[in-house]
């Protein structure tokens, strides 16, 4: 495998890790208003993600930095092309982060309601918009000869991208409900289970629908899945996750439900990566204008240096992130510390 391909899969892996980790706290936020009703329940839900949500978000930042160093032209073209959409994502990230941290600082019910709504809206919008962005990448973009494109709102919010956005939103919401099933007890856990079961069927329907339509919409998917038969492993992985999800709808199977949504997310994103490989931004103007892992990459020396520097660091990150997650495993209780 070439260094360029290794970097493609590192970025893919970072995106999967981000979606699995920040995915559950985005998911908790997306259903938070309906799953957690009383103030104590809301504090419990927030404490369930409290010690880890910020670290989870760092995966997105680190992935962004890795994109700059490995495929700078893709970062430049993609980020400036989706200018307004990304600015909206930023503003929702601000709203969400502030809402989580500030909500429980005052006793006032009005203050808390305000930031409850902020946490929900920010999480909901980000979960949706991440899927919209991915849909646009799968569908191909009007990348010109100079490697840039201007993605207007009307263009960005096309029906296919909205479908992948909905799939992203429901999958992460399902994942979040599964996380709350593990972390909570009593009525909150029971409501999370109901939501998980409901969302499961939405995820299943949308995943199947999006897969079929992708074969119709994506200019690269058919050739890729023909050329690399191993790519089918990812849709099968997603199916495996969905089957675990089906079997674990009843109470008492929380861990399998959560494993199910993790594997589903990994499978879906892996399948998406195989849809575009080795393109990063496929040009619908002319395939020759596409930004690929070869023509958009940094020099081999830069890729090698960055690989070494980041892999060494990530080993440490994985070790102590696991330690932090292990420390906070088990049911969460509200007390003197936390939200």
């Amino acid at each position, binding site marked *: 495998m070439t260094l360029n391909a290794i970097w493609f899969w590192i970025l893919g892996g970072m995106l999967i890790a981000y979606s699995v980790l920040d995915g559950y706290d985005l998911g908790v936020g997306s259903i938070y208003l309906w799953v957690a009703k009383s103030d104590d329940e809301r504090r419990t839900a927030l404490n369930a993600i409290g010690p880890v949500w910020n670290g989870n978000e760092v995966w997105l*930042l*680190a992935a962004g930095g890795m994109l700059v160093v490995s495929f700078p032209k893709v970062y430049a073209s993609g980020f400036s092309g989706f200018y307004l959409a990304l600015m909206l994502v930023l503003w929702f990230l601000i709203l969400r982060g502030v809402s989580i941290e500030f909500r429980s600082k005052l006793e006032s019910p009005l203050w808390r309601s305000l930031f409850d709504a902020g946490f929900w809206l920010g999480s909901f919008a980000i979960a949706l918009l991440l899927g919209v962005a991915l849909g646009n990448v799968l569908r191909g973009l009007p990348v010109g000869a100079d490697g840039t494109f201007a993605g207007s709102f009307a263009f960005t919010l096309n029906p296919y991208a909205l479908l992948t956005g909905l799939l992203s939103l429901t999958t992460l919401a399902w994942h979040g409900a599964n996380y709350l099933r593990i972390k909570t007890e009593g009525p909150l856990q029971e409501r999370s289970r109901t939501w998980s079961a409901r969302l499961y069927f939405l995820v299943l329907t949308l995943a199947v629908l999006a897969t079929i339509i992708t074969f119709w919409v994506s200019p690269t998917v058919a050739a890729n899945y023909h050329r690399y038969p191993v790519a089918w492993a990812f849709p099968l992985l997603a199916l495996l996750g969905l089957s675990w999800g089906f079997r674990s709808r009843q109470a008492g199977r929380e861990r399998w439900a959560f494993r199910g949504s993790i594997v589903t997310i990994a499978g879906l994103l892996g399948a998406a990566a195989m849809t575009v490989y080795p393109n990063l931004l496929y040009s619908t103007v002319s395939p020759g204008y596409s930004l690929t892992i070869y023509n958009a990459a940094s020099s081999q020396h830069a890729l090698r240096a960055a690989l070494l520097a980041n892999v060494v660091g990530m080993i440490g990150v994985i070790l102590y992130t696991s330690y932090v997650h292990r420390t906070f495993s088990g049911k969460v209780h509200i007390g003197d510390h936390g939200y």
Partner: protein
Amino acid sequence: MDVAVFAHRIQFAFTVMFHYLFPILTMGLGFFIALLSTLEILKNDPRYGAAARFWAKIFTINFALGVVTGIPLEFEFGTNWSRFSAYGGGVFGQTLPLEGVYAFFLESGFLGLFLFGHGKVSRGVHWLAGMGVAVGSLLSGYFIVATNAWMQHPVGYAVDANGTLRLTSFWEVMLNPFAGWQYLHTINGALLTAAYAIGAAGAYYVLSGRHPEFGRLSLKIAVIAGVILSLTQAFPTGDMNSRNVTDYQPVKLAAMEGLLTTQPNAPLAIIGMPDPATARLIDPLYVPGLLSYLAYGNSRASVKGLDAYPKDVLPPIELTYYSYHIMVGLGTLFIAQMLLGLFLLWRRKLESSRWFLWTLMLAIPFPYIANEAGWTATEVGRQPWLVYGLLKTPAGTSPTVASGETIFTMLGFAGIYALLAFLFVFLVGRIIVQGPDEASSH
């Protein structure tokens, strides 16, 4: 100037300056919280633990705002400065993910452990988590300063046939000679700001007669740390940083010092208003020969003035000059104020000198202004270059983003950040009014 370029520059300047208000305190306070936690264990004195918990409350709010206002900056390299990223991403981008990988993960993971870990981890692990937060905060500064240092003094690259840059040495980028002193000067400024924050809170409690014991402890820590830090801010960190500017960016030095004409025995302008039209300082106060001495160790050395350079490589002179002089002037006042504080502490008059406590409490905005002014001199003084000597600022913008889009998002950031500033002042003010004991329950 082109409206689109101006809009990109204003948005970046605004978002980075607002963001930086928070890391200043995060980087500085992380160290002091770790220090207080260590003193609690070493001296077996719960007062230090109470102080650590009090500052951790403020740290948390400050950290949250630092995070949410920091993410836009990483995006803006691509959204607003896409040609810059495409041009040099493989070189300057080396340090960007490392900030996340080696610092932010550490900082956020251990902050979670530090804030939520009571009763779940042992006292030793809890102490280690506090150290992890401090180390993560201090490290994050290095990677981002190294990125900036590369823009000030690009190293470890070669120009490719297609005009973009290619990495030739990772370690040259990581260990850029410009980065070391710039980093130490930056971190020192952050630590000094934290010392001022602790001192201002201490002064407030002693003056108001509430939590006087906590107030006295805070004052003592602030004055002792403040004397050391205000001195190291000037020597060696500030002085060595200036020498790097002298060596690598002499035109910036001339603009910072307001040296309009080349001359031997160059004077140091203490005050005065530069007038580029007539090439002179209005109402100046000079120390003859001192600039030559500081720059070259010889008071008779000739120092190049702004007239020695072509007009198209001159930075905006007034803004560079004033921001630099504001920084140096405030830095000098910090030394004087902290030395006075130390004298009063030695004579056991610190707590009874109410006039001094008032000045210490009201001084809190000024270290922030000095930090921001220093960065303004660094960044405005780098103009017209985005990458010094290689890429001019207008050549780095995003070609597909219209000026109207940037003006819209700039207004959006202005509105959102005004709300954030209001929330920050409200919540931190509330914690300070509640005081150290009550602040731990909510």
